[in-house]
């Protein structure tokens, strides 16, 4: 009660400060999230594991922004989380979710200290999207946003890190327009004082803006161990240096065109490691160049490019995956009478049941070949080269957004054989405002997404690969009355064929392959009601049924049904 009193007092005081001098600002997010889940599996297959799971939480992220002077801001966010069933303080946790100092020094240098969100280029530092969605329904994306929010996967593909960041720019009146500098240093891992050295991650960009059309940038980033933080001389070091160019110009009044390119190299050193498996030096290079045509009426964006990323190009900041597929999901971890570990599926990722990354991995993380075999480590996935085409139509009245994504890639180095795999990916999606077609006032939006990936390799019977996977997303949102919407969503995923899963040792070296045969389908159907109190405040009540059919020999079929309530408030 006393605590609530303090909070109310703070709120009152802050509102006054904010209103009068703008020196104090309070914001935050509140959430209630409750699940009731049932494991649907043949009792003959599983009679030992509990088939039901009920859990949930309420939380409040209370953020304070303090402006001590015109050039400084202190941002803090405190999380109070109460697990469902943890009455009277049991299950309650208090955490500092963010503490950042930022401002402008001498009206020249911008700085950030503490918790900072960082992004550079897709080949240096970039938090790429996780698996399992292509223009998915709102009933799924609302829940996915909760995961993104909790894991700091902010829009713009940033990584949340702890450290310091500075930036400043110089403007010129002749010869060039401006030069901008930015840099950061973050702490990735503390030392244990014995065997694990402290690890830092730092980088920076120098951008040369020649004029309004042309700019160049030099990007450099490094993940490295700090010497003398343990009583051993072992040290890991990864450097990535790239050069990028961006050009924009006009062909005529209706069409703009542009050129983007980035090229660079990486090197990895395992210094003074006695393990013979540790390579002395690994280096490789990449380039990625694309032309863009921007049609103004209708507004269509075409992007055609070619990339070649070397097999030994390692850029941890750009290749770290969000989902760790080696970990079992948080709910129904074991199933069957043999207590098998259940693999992460598409809805586990949406429901915050998977293990997510919050640090940069120095190793290429394991991935599920069924969900993404084309670019499993993002745009910077090593050992890929080929062409890609992206087309997007934006801001049409009836078609809110439509896109097509096509890629034809190849390995540049074989995996276990001299023959190379080929990868074909075709994706498309659209949001259609059906009400605009018929002139209805109440919003009725249909969204659709499709992605079809094919992996092939020829050769002898034992090395042949033929894997096809398809992900289809359907969604419908209908405003039925006032602020009440009906949300419907469906996901269909199918993977069929064979692949050899690449297994890597602790030093990123391929040391084996696991042959896998796949014949699975996942079907997820969801229906719910959403009440929008306001744009920043909504309540979602939904039911979802997920079925996984595994038709391979010994495969386990199961399903998970769930009822959940999600209340979100941003203030």
């Amino acid at each position, binding site marked *: 009660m006393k605590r609530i009193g303090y909070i109310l007092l703070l709120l009152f005081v802050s509102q006054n400060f904010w209103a009068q001098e703008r020196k104090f600002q309070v914001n935050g997010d509140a959430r209630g999230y409750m699940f009731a889940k049932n494991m649907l599996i043949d009792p003959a297959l599983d009679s030992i594991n509990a088939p039901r799971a009920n859990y949930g939480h309420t939380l409040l992220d209370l953020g304070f922004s303090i402006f001590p002077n015109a050039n400084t801001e202190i941002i803090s966010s405190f999380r109070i989380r109460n697990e469902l069933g943890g009455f009277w303080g049991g299950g309650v946790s208090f955490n500092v979710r963010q503490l950042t100092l930022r401002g402008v020094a001498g009206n020249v240098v911008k700085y950030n200290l503490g918790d900072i969100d960082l992004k550079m280029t897709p080949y240096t530092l970039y938090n790429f999207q996780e698996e399992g969605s292509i223009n998915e329904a709102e009933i799924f994306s609302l829940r996915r946003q909760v995961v993104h929010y909790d894991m700091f996967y902010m829009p713009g593909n940033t990584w949340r890190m702890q450290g310091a960041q500075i930036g400043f720019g110089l403007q010129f009146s002749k010869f060039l327009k401006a030069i901008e500098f930015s840099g950061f240093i973050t702490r990735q891992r503390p030392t244990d004082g014995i065997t694990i050295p402290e690890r830092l991650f730092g980088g920076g960009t120098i951008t040369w803006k020649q004029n309004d059309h042309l700019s160049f940038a030099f990007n450099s980033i490094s993940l490295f161990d700090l010497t003398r933080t343990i009583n051993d001389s072992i040290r890991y070091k990864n450097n990535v240096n790239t050069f990028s160019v961006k*050009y924009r110009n006009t062909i005529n009044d209706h069409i703009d065109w542009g*050129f983007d390119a980035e*090229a660079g190299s990486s090197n990895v050193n395992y210094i003074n490691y006695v393990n013979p498996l540790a390579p002395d030096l690994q280096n490789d290079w990449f380039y990625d160049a694309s032309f863009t045509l921007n049609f103004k009426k209708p507004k269509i964006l075409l992007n055609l490019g070619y990339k070649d990323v070397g*097999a030994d190009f390692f850029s941890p900041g750009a290749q770290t995956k969000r989902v760790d597929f080696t970990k079992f999901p948080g709910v129904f971890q074991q199933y069957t009478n043999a207590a098998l570990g259940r693999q992460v599926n598409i809805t586990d990722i949406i429901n915050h049941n998977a293990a997510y990354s919050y640090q940069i991995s120095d190793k290429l993380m394991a991935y599920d070949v069924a969900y993404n075999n084309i670019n499993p480590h993002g745009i910077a996935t090593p050992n890929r080269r080929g062409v890609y085409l992206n087309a997007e139509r934006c801001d049409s009245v009836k078609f809110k957004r439509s896109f097509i994504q096509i890629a034809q890639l190849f390995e540049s*180095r074989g995996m*276990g054989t001299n023959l190379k795999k080929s990868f074909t990916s075709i994706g498309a999606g659209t949001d259609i405002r059906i009400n605009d077609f018929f002139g209805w006032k109440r919003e009725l939006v249909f969204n659709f997404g499709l992605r079809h990936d094919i992996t092939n390799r020829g050769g002898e019977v*034992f090395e042949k690969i033929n894997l096809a996977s398809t992900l289809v997303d359907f969604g419908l949102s209908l405003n039925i009355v006032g602020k009440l919407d009906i949300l419907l969503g469906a996901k269909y995923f199918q993977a069929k064929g064979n692949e050899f899963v690449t297994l890597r040792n602790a030093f990123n070296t391929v*040391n084996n392959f696991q042959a896998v045969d796949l014949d699975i389908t996942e079907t997820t159907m969801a229906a719910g009601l959403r009440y929008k109190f306001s744009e920043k405040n909504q309540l979602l009540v939904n039911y979802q049924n997920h079925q996984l059919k595994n038709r391979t020999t010994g495969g386990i079929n199961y399903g998970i049904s769930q009822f959940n309530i999600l209340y979100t408030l941003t203030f």
Partner: protein
Amino acid sequence: MNKLVFYTFLALFFLGCRKEDKVNFDGPSLSDSFGPFAILQDLSLNTYEVDFSAGQQVVFSMELSKNTNWVIEIEGENSGAVRTITGNERILSIDNAKWTGGANQFPSFNLEKAYITITFPNETDSPTILDSVLITGLKQDEGFLITSFEEGLGTTWQQFNQTTVAGTITCDPALAAKGSCFYSWNGTVGWDWAIGSVTIKPPSGTFGLPSNANNLFFNLAFKALQNVGPQNSFLLFWFDEDDNGDGVFNLNSEDRFIFEYWSNTLDWDLISRKYADLKFDADGAEQTTNGNGLTEPSKLISINVFFLANPNNGNAQAFADHLIFTLNEPYQP
């Protein structure tokens, strides 16, 4: 400027092309793991007559087309001893496929012909490779051999047998755990569990074992043939230590550590126990002895091997062979 950008792109596209790597690939060859199975080089042995006592060994050499499970089984013609060597490598060589004369368990190999069989359990329709080698010398044991009953009863030994029991040394290479001879009990004792015993003593003094009980293992081959089972028959050992060093064991003032081992199979069984553990009984409780209570193998003066069997089950029969102490690990037959 447009031309500059265009030519930059062209230069990147054509000059930046990576050369096709047709030789190297990442990871182990898929052919080695998943390719078709074939024997690229037939089995060859480095010798067809082997004297293990001279430190010789049999090396199996063979090349397969892929990494796959292989099993080499060697079986003694007369002893029935078996040695199995397994692996998964594509190349069989001295690194992974050599035989130094040991068996998986008792019985051990004799001077005999040993038949070799190589199979590939994961490869359907794969051939079975057969060969043989003649053993002209046996593997040298490492340890402190007390007796393998090859030299007859010791002059200081004592025997006890019930009147209806035949208990003595028997020689038959086909039946022995190692060598030709072993100790045998055979008889029906309807009135008592005690069948017979043999007390093994050195000709004089102690057995000359090292003093550290923590890395010394007692080993004996045991085979129950009748009245077998964990409720039916067992060997009872008395380890008598001469604590005061007077050359005589006195039960009232010196340590006797007792250990029992119940029979459970009809095959030769290796009884092996760390000497330091002899002071604990079957339940893990420390035994009460009348001496200093320390397990001191250097003071061991006699070992009594006593065969007992359930009197209600009729005839009881058992063999014992090859009593040996080893350092650091149990005996390897």
